[in-house]
């Protein structure tokens, strides 16, 4: 069974705020759900499938279905960190293709600025006593991957910085982006080191917020006025720490990318726009290599060529400004990757960064760490079914 042609994204919504001091996490989930449903021309009573991850408060989909008053025939609370929502779209499409539901709602919300977010790794995690006791943090885990990539392939801090530069050029056009100032390679290199070799400007933003997507069957999509974009292909592949045989320089995209391309029936040359998870600049470099947009180890040179800059680069990416500049709600960036891909396919990105005639887009999510014990999910979407 393939999901190609079996499901479409009919609604998408990104919370416009980056700091939300006056709402609860569940309220923001409901608010973005209402936004995505309104975008699709649907209502809460139409929803029969619901998808959420570890950012959902309480008993996951049970608490949230209860809170939002949903009547459901299908739920899924797969949590693979920030990549969860990209995987959810694939799962929703499969559920729709199998007839388990016809209007699937996916929500993300979190308030790391105004409150706290649940952490996926606690002291009951089997790895906790062998990793966290040494002072791990998200930037330092990614820094270990960056250091190894630099060692093996000669990648430079200047090359990594270009990822942030391109993101900032795009964020400049997004009125909702947290950071709209265009930065230079020098700005990145001169920002304080957080965990060598990563500087502050190599790191994504921390924001309150959320987003939601509505995935529907072709029959439902036909009844709607809104332009729906087609789910063409999906792949996911958690990568493990391989019982101590970690490598740090290869991500789960090595395995999540090929099935997504195969299912979609497209090649790299067909990808007009790519949303690439950008928790850190190194995340983008390793991911584009592993998705096959350039040879392994050449990601630094690839990005330094300006390829990521929209609209004219060879692989225009993250035209909303990405996690590096726009938004990283709940410390989980997969949802916003889908949302900007949908905007591009609908022709609704900012005109300055809208890729002309954008027909095929890729959205890739990364979760957890990089190159070891990580979630990875790849989605390919099309303007037309």
């Amino acid at each position, binding site marked *: 069974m393939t999901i190609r042609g079996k499901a479409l994204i009919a609604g998408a919504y990104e919370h416009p705020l980056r700091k939300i001091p006056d709402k609860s996490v569940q309220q923001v989930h409901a608010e973005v759900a209402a936004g995505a449903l309104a975008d699709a021309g649907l209502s809460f009573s139409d929803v029969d499938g619901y998808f959420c991850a570890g950012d959902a408060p309480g008993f996951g989909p049970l608490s949230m279905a209860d809170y939002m008053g949903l009547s459901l025939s299908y739920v899924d609370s797969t949590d693979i960190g920030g990549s969860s929502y990209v995987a959810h779209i694939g799962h929703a499409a499969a559920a729709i293709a199998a007839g388990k539901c016809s209007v699937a709602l996916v929500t993300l919300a979190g308030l790391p600025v105004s409150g706290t977010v649940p952490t996926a790794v606690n002291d009951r995690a089997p790895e906790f006593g062998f990793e966290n*006791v040494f002072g791990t943090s998200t930037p330092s885990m990614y820094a270990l991957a960056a250091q190894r990539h630099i060692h093996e392939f000669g990648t430079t801090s200047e090359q990594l910085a270009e990822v942030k530069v391109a993101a900032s050029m795009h964020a400049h056009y997004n009125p909702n982006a947290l950071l709209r100032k265009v930065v230079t390679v020098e700005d990145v290199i001169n920002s304080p080191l957080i965990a060598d070799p990563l500087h502050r400007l190599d790191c994504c933003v921390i924001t309150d917020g959320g987003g939601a997507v509505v995935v529907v069957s072709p029959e439902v999509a036909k009844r709607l006025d809104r332009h729906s974009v087609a789910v063409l292909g999906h792949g996911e592949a958690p990568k493990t720490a391989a019982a101590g045989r970690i490598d740090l320089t290869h991500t789960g995209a090595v395995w999540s990318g090929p099935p997504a391309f195969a299912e979609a029936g497209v090649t790299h040359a067909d990808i007009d726009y790519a949303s690439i998870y950008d928790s850190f600049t190194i995340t983008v470099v390793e991911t584009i290599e592993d998705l096959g947009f350039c040879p392994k180890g050449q990601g630094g040179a690839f990005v330094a060529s300006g390829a990521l800059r929209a609209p004219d680069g060879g692989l225009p990416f993250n035209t909303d400004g990405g996690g590096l500049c726009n938004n990283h709600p709940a410390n989980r960036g997969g949802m916003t990757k889908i949302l900007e891909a949908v905007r591009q396919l609908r022709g609704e990105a900012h005109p300055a960064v809208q890729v002309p005639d954008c027909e095929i887009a890729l959205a890739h999510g990364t979760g957890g760490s990089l190159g070891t014990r990580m979630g990875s999910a790849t989605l390919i979407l099309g303007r037309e079914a």
Partner: protein
Amino acid sequence: MTENTTSAARIGSDLPAPTPPISVETQTFWTATTEGTLLLSRCLSCREYAWYPRGFCPHCGHLDVEWVPAAGTGTVYSYSIVRRGGLGDYRGAEPYVLAYVELDEGVRMMTNIVDVDEDELRIGLPVSVVFHRTAGEAALPRFTPAR
């Protein structure tokens, strides 16, 4: 933590040593650390080592493992000097070195490099294990340059 004024470039001479969670599965490992021994779990069927140590073989699915003392030496596989954003017990302990060390037995383990000069820190640096006692019945296996 106060600045190390005796050697400005030396990192990790006074790190916190948080107590790890100790379970029936990991008690043998942690008890050994208090006696200065780094144990590895090795599958009784396929004979492969696993890190982190566990009572199960993720290579072949076998349920029985044995504990084998490691040589306690290896090389730095990757490292980062954490300068900001230490969490929990590590808040304010920056700078410190988070690293993966590849043991002579082949597995790569997360650890800290301690008592190291910033300019000698590099991937491939030979290191040997030291144990830092925690408040509980465990000591943290960290590594220092082999001298």
